[in-house]
């Protein structure tokens, strides 16, 4: 189980996350929604150890990892597929996969990759950064599937993927779920992720504004209140209606 308590974090002189509490129970899938710039990426990066937490705690199965560096958290079972650049762009596809595995059996892994994304196995010797945007994203997604981390966080997995491939990605998410992993998912296609999620969190301007089940969002009003928020909405305007 992944638990975030009282978390504050940000960049140099900007606090982005204010007192965030979040729980991903074992084997459950949590969708994290929010407008652009709400702090979703930041939250995931803090949990993975890429951005330091200013205050608060992060627990994996009750054990605090907040002071551990990213690589220890990764070894401890947190896998983040980051936004935008989840691959080593200057290495070949084969070397990327070898890095993801950190020394484990490459042959078997390549076979599995071939089953998910046959396109990638045709490109093993291509430098990953020269592949098309979607092909790069496929490679990034591979990592979540290849490593057996109990906690998987995905930041906008389906960005830039053709609709057919998005279907496959969501099949992959289902697969991870079926394997009993705990998932924390940030997604552009909110309706699709809500179909697989057990719980939903809405992050608004760096604070959790809603926690509940997908069904509660069905009428769309909450959706609009929080996901409509954009940079030019003055701070006072949102101080009004809360849940």
């Amino acid at each position: 189980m992944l638990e975030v308590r009282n978390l504050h974090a940000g960049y140099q002189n900007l606090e982005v996350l204010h007192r965030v509490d979040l729980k991903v129970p074992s084997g459950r899938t949590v969708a994290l929604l929010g407008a652009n710039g709400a702090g979703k990426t930041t939250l995931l990066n803090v949990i993975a150890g890429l951005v330091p937490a200013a205050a608060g705690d992060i627990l994996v199965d009750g054990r605090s990892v907040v002071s551990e560096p990213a690589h220890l958290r990764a070894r401890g079972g947190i896998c983040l597929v980051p936004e935008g650049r989840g691959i080593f762009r200057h290495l070949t596809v084969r070397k990327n996969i070898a890095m993801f595995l950190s020394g484990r059996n490459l042959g078997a892994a390549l076979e599995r990759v071939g089953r998910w994304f046959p396109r990638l196995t045709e490109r093993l010797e291509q430098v990953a950064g020269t592949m098309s945007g979607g092909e790069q994203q496929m490679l990034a997604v591979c990592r979540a599937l290849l490593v057996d981390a109990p906690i998987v966080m995905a930041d906008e997995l389906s960005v830039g993927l053709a609709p057919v491939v998005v279907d496959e990605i969501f099949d992959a998410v289902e697969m991870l779920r079926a394997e009993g992993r705990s998932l924390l998912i940030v997604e552009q296609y909110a309706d699709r992720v809500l179909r697989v999620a057990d719980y939903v969190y809405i992050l608004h301007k760096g604070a959790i504004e809603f926690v509940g089940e997908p069904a509660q969002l069905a009428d769309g009003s909450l959706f609009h209140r929080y996901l409509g928020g954009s940079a030019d909405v003055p701070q006072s305007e949102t101080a009004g209606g809360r849940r």
Partner: protein
Amino acid sequence: MKSFLPFLIIGVSTGAVYALAAMGLVVTYTTSGIFNFAHGAVGMFAAYIFYTLRVDVGIPTGLAAAVAILLVAPAIGVLIDRVLLQRFVGGSASSSIVVSLGLLVALQGTAVAIYGGETRSVAPLFPTSTFEVGGVRVGYDQVIVVAIALAAALGLSLFFRRTQLGLKTQAVVGDRALTGLVGVDARAVTTFSWMLGSAFAALSGVLFAPFVGLDSILLTLLVVQAFGAAVIGGLRNLTLANAGAYGVGIAAALSTKWVATVPSLRGLPSSIPFLVLFLVLVASPKGRFTEVGDSAGSAARRSVGTNRFPWRALAVLTAAALVVPSLLSPAKLLTASATVVFVLMFASLGLLVGLSRQVSLCHAVFAVFGATTLSHLQSAGVPYVLALVLAGLAVVPVGALIAIPAIRLSGLFLALATFGFGVLAESLLFNSAAVFGSDGVAFVARPSPFQNDRAFYYFAVAVVIVGLIVIEAVRVTRLGRILRAMADSPVALQSIRVNPIASRVMVFCLSAFLAAVSGGLLGSLIRSMNLASFGFFQSLIWLTVLVAAGASSLGGAVLAAVLLVTGPAVFTSPSFTEWQPVAFGLGAMVLAQAPNGLVGYLKPPPLADFAARSRWRLAASRHRARLAPRLEEAL
């Protein structure tokens, strides 16, 4: 054919020396993202340690070599990585170059402080007996060095191709954050890279010491000659780097045969490595040279200066400059004038390094050409101010000569091209009568109304202030904005109808112009300039001082001038001067890792930061007050 054989053999054994050095450069670059100018210095230091162990302590040769290469050098590597490079983030060419230049100066300074400056001879490591091939005597030691170089090449390529650790070292340079996410300790890998690179440097140092003698400068600069070979491999391909090394070695050896009969070309053989460096860089097709490392990581930290014209700073500076002479004894006036002129020199370099993030390692050449052209024009009777401007303009084509072909090169590779040009200019052009005249000294007169030191000081201040106004004006114009944008994304610039090449050439030429003008002023100040005034190493020192002081603002240029000129003139105690290079090198290393060097620390944090911070705190506390529902409720 027979007559070529001896040269061929010499060429191959020199090539092996270059190959070892080039491989070392490639290894450190591909695994740490730093093109290590100090690679030779690390080797040199290890060679001294080896010498101490072998001669002073009396340990058997083999063991001493093993200790130096396998224990001491890796320890130096750990020290470099863990202590000196603690806050290093890749991505900016100038900061990574300066970090390694600082290391070079520090190591060399330490060696001189401990062992003294004179060359010591080192007993050979290997049997010096010879055998005969086709009528030519070949030393066994030569053969052994070649064998070691080949074995090292093989070992390294296996390491990178076949081992997981080799793979990790490549991954870390490309994307540190992601390396962490896949569960690899990026810090440990980087430390290992430095250990490996240092051991490699030590191997070369220990091997070469018997051939060239134990000399802190010679051993340090030996590696410089391998830059060309390393660049042939794009700084990352070991096979090509090796091929290049033997090619350069053989070419240099053969050229000695040919130029023996042409005295005016006697500088050529030793220039061949640099010719190769320069030509390979400027003549290769676009896209051949790409840098390792992710620039995104460092973009946020990088300081690119403000876009406001610093009226107040310039006014304060002018006022201060006008008051200074009345506070100083006349004897100090020369130092003050030199400082003032160097402000312009550094500001011109800052225009390149700080604003457009292009690194020039040949600024001294511009200065020298400025001074010598001024001298020539004066002897032709051109009035001073006109001559000074013309001297500046005369150097513009030289700037363009480097900028135009090199313009397709990014960061580090542009820097290396300018470096190659700087060395070539010194070794090939400075010797020719056209530059310094037949007796190697160019006399530069002062303008007639400003003959005495005090008057000339004011004259220099006036010229420098005009120069600074031009530079600061460029920063705030469209050109300035384009230059700041360019380092982030040249393709995006093209898509908004800006031709980035024109802007880059323009700023390079402007910088060269101003550097030449400063050079002319310097010449007038000391009334002459000779071959030894500004060697290619000066350019490196200038860059180092500027980046350490802060390259992206006027304040940085002023501070740099004070550090370079005034500092040494004030601190003259012998114990200090002995360790001064060490302090300088270490200081530069540390400061080059800061977003805007030393001036960055001197400025109080802007008020806006506090405001932003308190706004966020406020928002946070407001939020806490109306507290979000507890989690447990919902789950």
